[in-house]
């Protein structure tokens, strides 16, 4: 039963009373198969999303009053994301606005223009979140391969499988959100494949305020192949993003390939929307770039 205002002389019918009672014990379910914008009449209801693809529930200002609550649940396979339209939607630091299948939460309004989302099962399982493949791209024909359209991914795994450039002595590096500012910092171990052994081949790398995050280097031979990964954490929240990375080029008949094992951070508070794999010289001519994400 939609909320209504009773005044002196108004009559509360038995049907209305039964409806109220029913809703109190069993909230009215309003099923949605597509993205939905909340209406004033949704106060006190359960909005149940059921869609195969990704959807949103948009929250606008001027529709609800302080104390109103809307129960949001998702039974569909597609992730449903609670989205601030004109209203503000707050949440705890560790909570997510993205509802996976069979997840739910309460949207509680503290004013007509501001709500807090309380998800019910964030962190309750204590298990690692599932990763799904966001995109798999052939590393060919370009110096930079960018995967855009990334959203609401807390953790991102980027893998290079047998990446190669048409040139030799090429560094492979990452950029986030096409950011070429001096915001990348990484520290760890560096191993350089020289023509002969030298103690200095094993070294540390300590790079601050770089314009990209280097994951490794191909040898002087253009047939050299690079494989490695970068795990990027905190992609869907504000604050710096931590990065863990490892990888190396093969000799491929040359030398000078470098393997890095580093940890670092991207000093930028923006949420991650794109990842770019970059060859420092020459187009990629082999390999696969994969990006896995977990919301």
């Amino acid at each position, binding site marked *: 039963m939609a909320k209504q205002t009773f005044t002196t002389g108004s009559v509360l019918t038995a049907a209305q009373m039964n409806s109220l009672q029913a809703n109190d014990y069993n909230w009215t379910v309003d099923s949605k198969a597509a993205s939905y914008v909340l209406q004033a009449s949704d106060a006190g209801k359960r909005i149940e999303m059921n869609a195969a693809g990704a959807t949103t529930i948009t929250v606008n200002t001027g529709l609800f009053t302080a104390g109103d609550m809307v129960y949001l649940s998702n039974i569909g396979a597609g992730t449903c994301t609670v989205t601030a339209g004109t209203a503000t939607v707050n949440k705890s630091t560790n909570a997510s606005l993205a509802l996976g299948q069979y997840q739910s939460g309460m949207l509680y309004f503290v004013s007509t223009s501001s709500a807090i989302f309380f998800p019910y099962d964030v962190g309750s399982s204590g298990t690692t979140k599932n990763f799904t493949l966001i*995109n798999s791209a052939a590393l060919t024909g*370009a*110096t930079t391969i960018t*995967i*855009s359209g*990334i959203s609401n991914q807390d953790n991102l795994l980027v893998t290079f499988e047998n990446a190669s450039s048409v040139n030799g002595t090429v*560094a492979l590096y990452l950029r986030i959100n096409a950011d070429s500012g001096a915001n990348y910092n990484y520290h760890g171990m560096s191993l350089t494949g020289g023509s002969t052994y030298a103690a200095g081949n094993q070294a540390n790398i300590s790079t601050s305020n770089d*314009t990209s995050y280097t994951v490794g280097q191909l040898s002087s031979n253009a047939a050299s192949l690079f494989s490695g990964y970068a795990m990027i954490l905190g992609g869907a929240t504000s604050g710096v993003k931590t990065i863990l990375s490892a990888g190396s080029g093969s000799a491929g008949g040359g*030398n000078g390939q470098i393997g890095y094992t580093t940890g670092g951070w991207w000093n930028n508070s923006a949420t991650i929307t794109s990842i770019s794999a970059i060859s*420092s010289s020459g187009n990629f001519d082999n390999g696969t770039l994969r990006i896995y994400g977990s919301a």
Partner: protein
Amino acid sequence: MYKEKIINAQTGEETWRDYTKEEIVEAQAIQKKIDEQLKAILEKQKLRESALNKLIALGLTEEEIASL
């Protein structure tokens, strides 16, 4: 020569663009730095190799050289 391929993970749409002049200058500067670093490493190794050969020519054994 310098191109970027952008793949939208939501739609699958692929778009291409050429690097800007500024991006090309930046890429070339990065590559120059990489080449110089590798050159320095390889020159150092060449010197070491030369020194080892001279020590061997003086009659030192590999074990003796390794103990230095």
